[in-house]
């Protein structure tokens, strides 16, 4: 871990949406760092603010959203330090994709339906021409070919196609290839495998793993899918009601969670390996982001909730080296988990 340079650091970020019903507090006081070859996964359900967070990192929030507070620092390839919250439009435009590319959830519709794939590459290269030398003509085709090969697509077939001529998995891989075109420092992937078939998901996970292990891209995943984090993340952040409620190295989060919400999520996901597990869902439903409960936002659904939880919102506190949780009762949560540890170990044994 030591000596790792942060490429991105977010401090106390607060984002709200103005709606007819009131202010939706989508992101509330989020802070984290991303190392320059690290992959970080944000896990949460719909309404946890994870997508808003992802969009804010490239400043692509919808018009009714605004960053109320906080800073987003980015260190560019040329070691320039940027505060994204204060960049002007043109600087932002040049920053996007060049430094930080984002692959969206619904890649099915992420490509312009009336343009061939080749033109998508050409467009991107052209509008970043001033910072990228002259990537056009043959050089562009070569670079596009290289990117498509990295995601295991056949460039000869893909470049001349229209988006609707490609399958969903292929389109998703085209988007990733397009993301690689300018060789950005950071890739943000919002639900990159949702709505794809298992075998296609696998192909994409393998591509991302190669990018991470061999090409050392820094990556941020945003997903509701715990298994994606288990596959690809170095660190995991569990998000609930616009906050990070637990943040730690992937093994810590999956094997030694200290926040009851993380525990609840882990208990709710069936696995294929091993015997049938006792699964339980988290009672209640996600909170209304306009009218949040007082104290810890998870307390109405939490089995550990006490008077204190109803009144005071717990800060993110260090619970172990490389792990922090926002729970007043993390010790109890931890000891209960470890006491139940038998089940998990049994599964480990079964695997061996």
């Amino acid at each position, binding site marked *: 871990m030591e000596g790792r340079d942060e490429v991105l650091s977010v401090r106390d970020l607060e984002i709200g949406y103005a709606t007819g019903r009131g202010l939706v507090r989508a992101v509330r006081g989020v802070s984290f760092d991303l190392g320059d070859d690290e992959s970080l996964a944000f896990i949460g359900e719909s309404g946890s603010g994870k997508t808003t967070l992802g969009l804010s990192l*490239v400043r*692509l929030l919808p018009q009714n959203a605004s960053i109320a507070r906080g800073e987003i620092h980015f260190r560019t390839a040329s070691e320039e330090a940027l505060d994204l919250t204060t960049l002007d439009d043109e600087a932002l*435009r*040049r*920053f*996007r*994709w*060049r430094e930080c*590319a*984002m692959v*969206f959830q*619904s*890649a099915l*519709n*992420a*490509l*312009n*339906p*009336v*343009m061939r794939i080749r033109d998508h590459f050409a*467009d*991107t290269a052209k*509008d*970043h021409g001033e910072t990228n030398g002259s990537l056009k003509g043959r050089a562009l085709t070569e670079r596009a070919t290289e990117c498509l090969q990295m995601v295991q697509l056949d460039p000869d077939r893909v470049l001349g196609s*229209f988006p*609707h*001529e*490609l*399958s969903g998995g292929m389109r998703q891989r085209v*988007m990733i290839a*397009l993301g690689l075109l300018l060789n950005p420092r950071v890739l943000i992937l919002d639900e990159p495998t949702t709505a794809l078939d298992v075998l296609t998901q696998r192909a994409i996970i393998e591509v991302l793993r190669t990018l991470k292990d061999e090409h050392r891209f820094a990556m941020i995943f945003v997903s509701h899918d715990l298994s994606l984090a288990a596959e690809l993340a170095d660190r995991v952040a569990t998000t609930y009601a616009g906050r990070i409620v637990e943040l730690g190295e992937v093994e810590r989060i999956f094997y030694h969670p200290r926040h009851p919400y993380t525990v609840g999520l882990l208990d709710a996901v069936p696995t294929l390996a091993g015997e049938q597990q006792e699964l339980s869902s988290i009672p209640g439903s996600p909170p209304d982001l306009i009218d949040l409960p007082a104290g810890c936002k998870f307390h109405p659904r939490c089995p550990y909730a006490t008077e204190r939880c109803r009144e005071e919102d717990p800060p993110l506190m260090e619970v172990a080296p490389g792990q922090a949780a926002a729970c007043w009762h993390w010790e109890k949560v931890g000891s209960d988990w470890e006491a139940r540890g038998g089940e998990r170990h049994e599964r480990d044994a079964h695997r061996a």
Partner: protein
Amino acid sequence: MEGIKRLARATAPAQGGGALGALRKIASSYLLRRIAKALITIFVMASLTFFLVRLMPGGPVEAYIANLVTQYNLSHENAEAQAASLFSLDLNAPVYQQYLEYLGNLARGDLGESLVSRGVPVSEIVMAYLPWTLFSIGTALIISFSLGIMLGMLMAYKRETKLDHILTNLGSIVSSIPDYLMGILILVWVGVQWELIDVTNMRGSLSPGVQPGFNLTFIADAFYHASLPILTYVLGTIGLWMLTMRGSTESTLGEDYVTVAKARGLKERRIATAYVGRNAALPPFTQLSISIALVFGGSLLIEWIFVYEGLGYLLYNAIQQRDYPVMQGVFLIITTMVIVANLLADLLYSRLDPRIRIAGRD
């Protein structure tokens, strides 16, 4: 279930080498299908006209013969012979033979002769008036479509601002008032009440003495005379384009590929044209065909109101004078024009939207 069909279709071209060839085949058969459909429509309309004119009891042919017999004291045979030459029909032949002959004549461009201007072939009359209608309607559609598209896009980009509200209301007002009332309003207010223009001078399709030719005087004069009809057509159709384009731009702006284009750091201008505009213009474009028929139809009144000498004006006069061969001829030509314009619009659309080339039908 739909999903399966879509899947099958979506992955179909993935089958290696023959994909491109297959694509071209579908595209060309789409073209053929579309042309065949247009031809059949023209054929049906021509047949319908034949039966209306020839077979309807008390229809034009019978009425004309009866008129000749009673008014001019002609014998029935003579009257029939005259009617036959006028309508280019052999009235003694069985109906199917008449019908075939009629179709044959049509194919040769023979539409019969005018009742009022004796001996003048209808086709000649029609051809003299046609260019002016094509000119005024074509110009108006181009202006109103492009202006409407631009305004609609502007409205969507500035949505929920004062500008948007004003333009939206204006658009729905002009699109709900009949175009000919708009024409009368222009005539009455601009021409008569305020006397801003000399409407009587603007009548006709050209000023006396101006000769057709490729020179400024002619072009300026043509535009001068067509300006009021064009203005009326534009006002009558622009609301539709504005509102449709506003809606489709608004939904296109919410499309993922636009957000992604922003994330890709593309320039705002490029996004507005190639990503938003190009896609958002597709829905209004599909309405173009319906609008063409309406505008051609509306030309009947507009040309009458402004005394602009095009097909509509000709048709009105023919109806007033019961000049049946001319009525029939003009109607057929207008219908053909609409069908051909529709065909062109459809073909152009299939060039604009690559997805249509595969889906083919509908």
